[in-house]
């Protein structure tokens, strides 16, 4: 029971980001890093402490997930989007117990990519806010490509690992009403947000009032490394889904 409460908190089953936001002491970047760190702790903990699925905590996490989708739909900041996505996926972590560790790891890697994009925006466009910075694919194709990769990963499409682990755990479990609710919310929640961001960033005409900055070789290499990580996780994901 205690382990379940701890894990629910660590994995983002409770929207503690509300308190952090209201305190005014933490910026969105810190909240994202903090939430990601706690999720990583949860992943590590599940490998040590045997966990049992508790319907109550999964239901609480589902409520938190729905609320986070609502909040995420209103933000245009990559950092905020990042931590909202952690909370949106929390019920999946709780429902599928320790099986979902790899899913959470993949989520963290995809968020790492998004974090690097956010930092790029912060350095070159003044903040991690992507509002009005449209037409990335036409203006800066490399950034457009990498951002598309991350958003497709987050919207749960194969061959990227999140989708593969998501499918894999679904095949290994027995459906019940809560299972259906969690799967539908996570499946469409991630998709809805990723597509929304894609429409507002990757697509559209380049904004003539903005000086678009091309990525340096070093930045491209960093993204290539994240992509390679996703690729490796994807190979494991295929194995996991098929065997």
């Amino acid at each position, binding site marked *: 029971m205690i382990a379940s409460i701890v894990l629910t908190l660590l994995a983002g089953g409770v929207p503690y980001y509300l308190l952090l936001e209201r305190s005014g002491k933490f910026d969105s970047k810190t909240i994202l890093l903090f939430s990601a760190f706690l999720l990583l702790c949860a992943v590590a903990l599940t490998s040590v402490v045997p966990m049992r699925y508790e319907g109550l905590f999964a239901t609480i996490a589902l409520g938190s997930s729905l609320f986070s989708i609502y909040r995420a739909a209103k933000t245009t900041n990559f950092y905020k989007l990042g931590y909202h996505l952690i909370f949106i996926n929390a019920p999946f972590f709780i429902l599928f117990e320790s099986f979902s560790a790899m899913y959470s790891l993949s989520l963290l890697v995809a968020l790492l990519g998004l974090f690097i994009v956010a930092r790029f925006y912060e350095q070159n466009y003044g903040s991690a806010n992507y509002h009005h910075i449209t*037409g990335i*694919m*036409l203006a800066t*194709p490399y950034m457009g490509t990498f951002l*598309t990769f991350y958003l*497709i990963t987050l919207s749960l*499409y*194969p*061959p990227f690992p999140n*989708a*593969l682990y998501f*499918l894999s755990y*679904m*095949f290994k479990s*027995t*459906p019940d009403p809560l299972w*259906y609710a969690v*799967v*539908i919310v996570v*499946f*469409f929640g991630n*998709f809805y947000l990723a*597509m929304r961001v894609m*429409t507002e960033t*990757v*697509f*559209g*005409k380049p904004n003539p009032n903005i000086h678009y900055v091309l990525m340096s070789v070093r930045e491209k290499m960093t993204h290539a490394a994240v992509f390679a990580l996703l690729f490796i996780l994807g190979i494991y994901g*295929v194995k996991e*889904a*098929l065997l």
Partner: protein
Amino acid sequence: MEQLVLLIPAIPIAIAVILGVVTDKALIPKVSIILSSMIALLGLYGTFYVLTNDAPIEGFGGYIIYNELSSILVPYVAILGLVVRKYATKYMWDEAGYRRFFILLNFIFASIYLLVMSNNLIVLALAWQLLSIALYLLVSFNVGSNSAVKNARWTMGIHKGADLVFIFAVVLTYNTFGSADLGVLSKTWLAMSFHPADNPMIFVIGLLFLIAAMMKSAIMPFHIWLPYTSEAPTPVSAVMHAGVVNVGGILLNKLAYLLLLSPAVLNIAFVIGLVTAILASLIMLAVPDIKRSLGYSTVGQMGYMIMEVGLGAFSLAIYHLIVHGIFKATLFLESGALIKLARHDSNLPKRLSYEIFWEENLKSSGKKAFKYLALFAVLPIVLFVGVKMVLDDAFFEFNAAIVILAFGWLTGTQLFLSFFKASKSETIKVAVGLVSSFVIILFTYEFIGMALEHYLYGKDAELFYHAATQNVALFFSLFALTLITVIGWYFMYKQHVEEVPGMAKQTNSMRWKLYRFLSNEGYLFQLLNRLRRSGS
């Protein structure tokens, strides 16, 4: 050697990776065409192998298979892919994102090959989703256009729904039957069909797969994505109308033995297919936009394809989707050249058909055409039905015969009117032309359809017809009876109304309302837009 055929789904991905590093723009289409012709050759070799050895090629732990269905569809998709790539070489040259286009094109073909060649429901689920994302990126290729991106979102929403329904169906199948291997499952389903058990879960699974297929194949009410995606580049439209929409039919063919256990699902498919075919064809005639009209034409054809599945004519659906695919791809790919020619000559299409069917002969009466048509259309049908019944009574299936006849008639007429410009005044020539095309289509369809059926399902084909016939015969009778009654009532009412002064105007207003309803596509989009606006 034959195991190389199983690499077909991986080859387009390899091409995409190579294209990513090619620096010379002129090399991009060349590399793409040369390497994808390898797929066509491998596909043809695979088909030769399956035909001569009478055995499928299986590999990768049984996840991938090159069987009878693949041996028909893979060469078709590969040749279509080659034509589209060749066409896109010049067509897309000045577009921003030339390389991106060819990379995405390879991804969509990879997902179609994987879908066709998968022998496992999980692999099928992966291919199913890969297709969605590849389609989304292609439909929104023109990233600078707001409407293209908006329509791509519509498309993606429907396809994501199809993905989820499909995954649920796979999960339930795995939990119910304990396997995801299609070979094992097909054998289990066939064995179960001889000892039918009343298991509602099988109905649910069948229905979920049907809904997923309907969503991907743009069957009503999930059709809204297809007519509005014509803003995508022409080669993408050709791939969409000739390849992507067919995946619903391919899926249902892969799961044919499951549907054997749930005749109710077949009946539902028949009804929905029928409604889609009729409504989409009516809307196609009424919408003012030529691109949307083409979109609705495809929706109607897909309705017809699902209807064939609902009648148990699974192999016929495959034949239909290939023929329709070739026809529609030709229409899309030829449109540019035709527009160019029409700019110089307003009498297009002219050529041979112009001399034969369009030379005005004002002395002839247009009304005669109907008499000739009736005479020449009824005779071959009566002959065909009679010969079929006398020669092979056991093989004659009522439902299948209806679908063949109707399809023969529709396709023949469509084929004739698409290629020839016909004048009402040339009654005999037009009637003979129509009937000839009908007879050609009918016998080609009969010959190839039956050969395909034998090749794909052998003796099992009859089981599908029997399963589909169980309830459809009664339903069809009731439907036909209702239709006759309604039409009878309508004519009686019309006769009566015409005699009463002042009522004729009301009839016209009804007709006008119907036209408005159809040309506004059933007000579905207005409703959805209003809902979206109120939501935001």
